């Protein structure tokens, strides 16, 4: 038409901008973003590097001796067995919960959603004490595998729920029009598309299993990490513990590699960009009662046990432990302040680390971004105790002013949970169409401005969820705090542990209660914000 040709003509007449600045790019990626992500990966990998140096300090033979003395094969097998049972179970629990909550007319969906997230934010050391006090049946392998599956399935749930929400309803409708019933459609269309979310979630479960400590000690299950702790406590030999950590580092790398092979190129985005309709929900009909029972059973095991035990501890307070508990209450407020402060500082820092990595992965998908993202996962290679020791060691040698300060602890906590921050951020950023940023750019905004004015406002709920997730993990982290907490300070976790380890459960109860309350709060934020993007009309 005449009007468009006029526009084209005008554009060619316009002179080139005088100060055309070339933005530096490498392999199509903006150099600044790439450098930031590399820097983050290096920072996050610092403890791993230090650990390797520490482990080799006594010479290779000393390292080999330490490894030899620990019958590593049996211990590794133990960790593996737990992961082998816990990961698929967590996968099953997570996918079914996500599907029933997101895609059916299950009664009480918001409640079930909350209950499906709470186990993740609940400190594992509280949950594991609760399991341990239930009796010997839950101790050993059964308890170890169970507690991992039931505490970490929410990560699978959250990832799959986001994935389900973003799925194009036309795909399922097309399958139905081709003669598939609801069940067939689920297995042939929905599950294949959930594969990236499912595998990613299960990978996190497996990695967590390898470095889990508190739960396994409480449930008296001997794994590699438990042995590393014992090694450290017995001999105070940092180099011995570090040498043993070689195993988990290698294992972690192998797992990351295996998962990337398994996932292949599967990163399903919508092939078509058509009209998006709200997803239809299936009627459960006669299945309502069995499904509800399934959810009740899951909630009883994952949330009922720790909360119930906590209530039981409080009833004990009224009898013998009363004096104990009241004596401890004056520590409650300072411990809460320290814990919350630590959590906020650590999570903000973790968000900062995670941002360039998440942006790179979402916007510039490829080998480089994937390697960088997975490099941050290597923090899982180290039990938190070993990582904390490594950082303390590094600080004492190269940054004496940091050594023994609260700042070092904040730094350590933020590094440990970067992978979770990346996962949560990806879930949100992945839903913001690049076209929106492109539009902002075409309107004259630079990349930073476009991010600040378009991406960030849209991603705010998801960013909040990422921060809350890290916050909850920091509250639930004990090993790092035990090593790096300045001597005059205490957290909810360390106070709980100090009392619970001497079986003074009534005295531990108030600290656990605050932790559980914070966990519930965090779960509520996570449930409503994880992977969410602000939509039109939201305030």
């Amino acid at each position, binding site marked *: *038409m*005449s009007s468009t040709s006029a526009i084209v003509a005008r554009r060619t007449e316009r002179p080139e901008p005088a100060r055309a600045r070339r933005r530096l790019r490498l392999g199509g990626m903006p150099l600044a973003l790439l450098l930031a992500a590399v820097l983050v990966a290096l920072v996050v990998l610092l403890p791993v590097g230090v650990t390797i140096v520490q482990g080799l300090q006594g010479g290779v033979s000393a390292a080999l001796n330490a490894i030899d003395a620990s019958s590593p094969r049996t211990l590794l097998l133990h960790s593996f067995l737990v992961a082998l049972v816990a990961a698929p179970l967590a996968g099953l629990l997570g996918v079914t919960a996500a599907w029933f909550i997101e895609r059916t007319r299950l009664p009480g969906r918001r409640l079930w959603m909350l209950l499906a997230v709470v186990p993740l934010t609940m400190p594992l050391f509280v949950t594991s004490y609760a399991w341990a006090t239930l009796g010997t049946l839950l101790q050993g392998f059964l308890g170890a595998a169970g507690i991992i599956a039931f505490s970490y399935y929410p990560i699978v749930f959250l990832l799959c729920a986001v994935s389900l929400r973003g799925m*194009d309803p*036309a*795909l399922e*409708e*097309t*399958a*139905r*029009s*081709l*003669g*598939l*019933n609801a069940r067939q*459609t689920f297995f*042939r*269309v929905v599950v*294949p*598309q959930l*594969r990236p979310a499912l595998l990613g979630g299960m990978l996190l479960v497996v990695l967590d299993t390898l470095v889990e400590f508190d739960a396994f000690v409480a449930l008296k299950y001997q794994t590699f990490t438990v042995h590393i702790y014992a090694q450290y406590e017995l001999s105070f030999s940092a180099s011995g513990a570090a040498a043993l950590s070689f195993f988990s580092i290698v294992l972690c790398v192998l797992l990351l590699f295996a998962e990337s092979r398994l996932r292949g190129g*599967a990163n*399903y*985005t*919508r*092939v*078509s*960009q*058509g*009209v*998006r*309709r709200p997803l*239809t929900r299936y009627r459960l009909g006669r299945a309502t009662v069995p499904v509800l029972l399934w959810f009740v059973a899951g909630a009883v095991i994952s949330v009922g046990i720790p909360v119930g035990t906590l209530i039981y501890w409080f009833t004990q307070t009224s009898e013998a432990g009363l004096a104990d508990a009241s004596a401890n209450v004056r520590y409650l407020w300072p411990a809460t302040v320290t814990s919350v402060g630590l959590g906020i500082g650590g999570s903000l820092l973790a968000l900062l680390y995670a941002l360039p990595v998440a942006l790179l992965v979402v916007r510039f998908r490829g080998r480089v971004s994937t390697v960088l993202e997975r490099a941050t996962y290597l923090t899982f290679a180290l039990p938190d105790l070993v990582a904390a020791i490594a950082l303390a060691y590094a600080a004492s040698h190269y940054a004496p002013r940091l050594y023994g300060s609260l700042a070092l602890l904040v730094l350590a906590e933020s590094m440990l949970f970067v992978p979770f921050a990346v996962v949560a951020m990806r879930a949100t950023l992945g839903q913001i169409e690049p076209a929106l940023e492109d539009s902002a750019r075409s309107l004259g905004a630079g990349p930073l401005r476009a991010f600040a004015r378009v991406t960030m406002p849209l991603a705010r709920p998801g960013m909040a969820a990422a921060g809350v997730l890290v916050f909850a993990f920091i509250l639930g982290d004990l090993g790092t705090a035990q090593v790096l907490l300045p001597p005059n300070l205490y957290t909810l976790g360390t106070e709980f542990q100090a009392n619970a380890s001497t079986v003074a459960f009534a005295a531990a109860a108030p600290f656990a209660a605050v932790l559980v309350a914070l966990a519930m709060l965090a779960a509520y934020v996570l449930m409503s914000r994880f992977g969410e993007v602000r939509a039109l009309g939201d305030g």
Partner: protein
Amino acid sequence: MSELRCQGLAKSYRGRAVLRDVDLEVPAGTLTAILGASGSGKTTLLRAIIGFIELDAGTVSLDGHTVAEGDRVHVASDKRKIGYVAQEGALFPHLNAGENVGFGLARSERRRGARIDQALELVGLDGSYAERPAHELSGGEQRRVALARALAPRPGIVLLDEPFSGLDAALRVETREAVLHALQEEGTTALLVTHDQAEALSMGREVAVLREGRLAQRAAPTALYRTPADADVAQFVGQATILPGSARAGEVQCALGRLALANPGREGAVEVMIRPEQIEIVRAGAHGYGQGEGSGVGARVLDYAYFGADTVVRLALEEASPTVVLARTFEHQIPVPGEPVELAVRGAVVVFAPPAAGAGEPHADPLNRASDEPQASEP
């Protein structure tokens, strides 16, 4: 091939009626196009027929078998054997083209692969496409694969939801031909939803115009274009000039003179509908034109829209000065704005009952051609 019959379909969302009493018949082996603006309820109609949504009232039957009846009967979509091509194709991203096409086939047939190749061939794609991942296909190829996937299980009827939206003009024509060819080859009944007038007119044996959830008119393309049911339909299926007039004895008197009626019978005050190609421009000074009635009506060129093959000129009549008419010219020479011309009307014109008092100027800018904008979401 199946015959589709819909009677009295109604559906409302939160008190807002989206479909009201829609009757539709699609004879076996033919293609009917449903034409409607965004929000007219056409996608809802399609989804109700296929069974993705449940109707409030009305019946849908295929070859005499009722698959939906009000809120009493609702055969699940997977049991209806209705093929469906979603907007933009909706190919399964985790499968390649061949696996997509074989998706609805029985396992044995899928393994053999003959039907997959056959279906791909139907839509004009050779067997080498089978191995291509869904996301590596171009937009047009995606639509073709989506149709092949819908046709592979040999459904009696296929429903197509805006199958060509988002394709560029040339690809649209090409893909349209491939689709028509495939449907014809299989003898499949088809119902196609579109907001594109040209697409509806050129593809459908019949075109049904849907407006605010109601079927405004259902007719063969030529009848729809030449004798639309009312002024709105007239302007929706093509460009038109609507003028007030007075009808008497098979003729109508209006600002363009005395014209013959294509739909005689109405007397008194009417609205006269004249298609742009019925109005010819006679340049000032060029005499000897317009042998018939109404020759030599003076007008002035306002502006024009050039489409390549033709040009649509907007003109102001000199005598009744606010009156604007549209004329389509295939002349090489494009008129200059401001130029005085004379107009002549060819052929008979259609008249409608005049709008109710107080309706005012109901018609939008007549120069706006069919908009190709993607359709906004419908509930």
